[in-house]
C-alpha cells in the first residue's frame, strides 16, 4: 500500500506531547480490537442482539403468560404439597413441588364469565371511565400542546414543566392525595365549592361522582405527559404547511382541521392507543381512592381480576378473566390502529 499521508514510524515518535495518556488509550483500543477479532461473527448477528431480551421475555413474561392461559382451564383447589417431579441419585436429591391442586374444568371458567354480573359491571365501569377519560385527556392535552406551541406564549418552559409535573407523583401517593382532596367533609374540592356557594358533593359515595373522581385523578396525572408528546408532534409539522394554508386563506380552525390534525395523526394515534391501554389497565387509582365502590360503581376489570385472584382465591377464574381481558384490549387496540393508521 502506498502512502500519501504522514506515516510516523520514526523511532521515538512516541515522544509527542500528551502521548502518554493517548498511548494508554491506544493500548486499551488495541486490546479491544484483538478481542473483537477473536470473537467470531457468529451466525446471524441479529439473534445475538435479541437474545438477551428474548430470553428474559420468555422466562419472565412468556412463561407466566402461558401459565395463566393454562390455569384458565382449571379450578384452583388449594395449595399442593405434593411432589410433582423428583430425582434421586443418592447424594443428589431433587424435587419439584406441584404448585397447586387443579381441577380441569375445560371452558367452564369462560362460560361462567358470560353470566358473571360483576364482570360485566367492571367491564362497563372500565369502558365508561375510558370513554370519558381518554377523550377528555387527549383533548386537553392537545389543546394545551397547541397553546404551548403558540409563538407568542412566554415562559413556555415553566408552563410545560408545571403541567407535566404530575406524572412524577408516585401512583399510590397521588391516589392518596386525591382521596383526601375529594373528601366529603374536609376535602379541598368541597371547600372550593363552598366558597362559590355550591353544595358539597359526596364525591366518593355517589356512583356518578365517584367515577368522575377517578376520571379526574387519572386525567390530572397523565394530561401533561401526553401533552408533551403531542407538543413534540406539533413542533415537527413543517411551518411551510401553515404558511401555505394561510395564503390559501385558511382560518385558525381550518388550519387545525386541514394541517394540524392530519399531520399529527401518527402521534395522536400513538397517544390514543397507549392511553386506551393504560386506562383499560386502571387499577391503583380505584384501589386506593374508592376501593371499587360505591356499590361496585368504580371497580375496574383489572381490579376485579385482582379481587378474584387475591381475595377469593379463584386463580383459575381470574386467569380466564385475564385472557378475555387481554383479548378485548388487543382487539380494541388493533381497531384503533386500523381506523387511525393508513396502513
Amino acid at each position, binding site marked *: 500500500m502506498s502512502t500519501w499521508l504522514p506515516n510516523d514510524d520514526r523511532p521515538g515518535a512516541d515522544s509527542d506531547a500528551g502521548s502518554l495518556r493517548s498511548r494508554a488509550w491506544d493500548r486499551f483500543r488495541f486490546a479491544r480490537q484483538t478481542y473483537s477479532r477473536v470473537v467470531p461473527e457468529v451466525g446471524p448477528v441479529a439473534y445475538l442482539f435479541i437474545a438477551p431480551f428474548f430470553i428474559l421475555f420468555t422466562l419472565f413474561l412468556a412463561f407466566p403468560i402461558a401459565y395463566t392461559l393454562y390455569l384458565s382451564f382449571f379450578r384452583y383447589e388449594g395449595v399442593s404439597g405434593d411432589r410433582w417431579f423428583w430425582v434421586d441419585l443418592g447424594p443428589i436429591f431433587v424435587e419439584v413441588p406441584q404448585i397447586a391442586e387443579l381441577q380441569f374444568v375445560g371452558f367452564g371458567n369462560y362460560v361462567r364469565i358470560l353470566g358473571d354480573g360483576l364482570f360485566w359491571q367492571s367491564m362497563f365501569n372500565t369502558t365508561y371511565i375510558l370513554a370519558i377519560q381518554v377523550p377528555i385527556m387527549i383533548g386537553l392535552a392537545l389543546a394545551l400542546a397547541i397553546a404551548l406551541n403558540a409563538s407568542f406564549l412566554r415562559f413556555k418552559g415553566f408552563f*410545560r414543566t408545571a403541567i407535566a409535573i404530575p406524572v412524577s407523583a408516585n401512583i399510590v401517593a397521588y391516589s392518596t392525595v386525591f382521596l383526601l382532596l375529594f373528601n366529603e367533609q*374536609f376535602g379541598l374540592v368541597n371547600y372550593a365549592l363552598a366558597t362559590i356557594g355550591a353544595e358539597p358533593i359526596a364525591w366518593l359515595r355517589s356512583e356518578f361522582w365517584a367515577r368522575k373522581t377517578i376520571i379526574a385523578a387519572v386525567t390530572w396525572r397523565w394530561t401533561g405527559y401526553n401533552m408533551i408528546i403531542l407538543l*413534540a408532534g406539533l413542533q415537527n409539522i413543517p411551518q411551510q404547511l401553515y404558511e401555505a394554508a394561510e395564503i390559501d386563506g385558511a382560518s385558525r380552525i381550518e388550519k387545525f382541521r386541514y394541517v394540524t390534525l392530519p399531520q399529527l395523526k*401518527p402521534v395522536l394515534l400513538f397517544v390514543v392507543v397507549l392511553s386506551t391501554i393504560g386506562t383499560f389497565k386502571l387499577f391503583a387509582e380505584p384501589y386506593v381512592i374508592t376501593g371499587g365502590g360505591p356499590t361496585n360503581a368504580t371497580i375496574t376489570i383489572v381490579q376485579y381480576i385482582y379481587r378474584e385472584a387475591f381475595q377469593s382465591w379463584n386463580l383459575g377464574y381470574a386467569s380466564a378473566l385475564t385472557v378475555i381481558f387481554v383479548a378485548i384490549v388487543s382487539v380494541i387496540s388493533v381497531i384503533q390502529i386500523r381506523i387511525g393508521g393508513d396502513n
Partner: protein
Amino acid sequence: MREQRRKDAVWRFLTYTFVLTATVVMLVPLYWMVVAASLPQELFIEFPPRLYPGTSFFENFTALQERANFVRSIGNSVFIAVVYTVISILLCSMAGFAFAKYEFRFKEPIFYVILATLVLPIQLLVIPLFLMMSQIGWTDTFRAIILPWLANPIGIFLMRQNMQSIPDALLESARMDGATEFQLFYRIALPAMRSSVAALAIILFLFQWDLFLYPLVILEDAANYTIPVALAGLEGTQRVYYDQIMVATSLAIIPLAILFLFLQKQFVSGILAGSLKE
C-alpha cells in the same frame, strides 16, 4: 387589519387564561400535598382546610422516619429504577436495533408477540412470578424486582421505530470503517439515538416507579421496601396517619421530578421518532 389585530389579542388572552388555569389545576394538588405534610394531624381534618403551610413538616417527617425508614425506601426505589432503566434500555435498544436493521426469520411474528404483551395486566403475573422467584431463592432481592420487566414491550417498540430512522448508509459506512456488528450498535446506533434513549429512560423509570403489587409481594425486609410498598405499609386498619403519608408523597415526587426536568427536552424529541415512523 385592525379587526385581525383585535382577534389576535382575544386569542392571546384566551390562550394565556387556558394555560394558566391548567397550570394552577395541575399544581394545586401538589401544593396542597405539601401544605398537608406540614400540618399537625389535628389541623389536617379541619374545615375549612388550611391553605398555607404549617410548621410541622419536620415533626411529621421524623415520625415517618421512625415508623418506616422512608428515606431508605426512596433510596431503594431510585436504585431499583435506575438499574432497571439502564439495563432495560440496553436490552431494548439492542433488540430494537436488530428488529429495525436486520432481517431474520420470524422477525415480524416475534415482534408482534412481544408488542401484544403491552396490554397484559401485570397484576396477574405476580403469582407465577413470585413462584419462580421463590423457587430460585430470589425473594426479597432487588434483582427479582428488576429482572422480569427488563424485556419491556414499549421499550422495544420505541427503539425499533427510532432505529429505523438511522440511515443504512451510516451503518454501512461504519462497517467499511471496520466496525463489528456490535460496535455498529454501541458506537453508532446508540449514540445517534440519544434523545430516544432519554425518552425511553423516562418511560421505563416511570414504569418501575409505579410498580406496586409485585414488589409488595417480593420484598420482605422493611429495609428493602420501595416507595409504594412503604406507603401501603403506612395504611393499617387503625387510624391512617395522613400527615405522614403526605410527607412521604411529597418526598417521593422529588426523584422523578428531577429526572423529568433533566430529560424533558430529549423526551420531546425522542419519543417522536418512534411514533412518526409508523
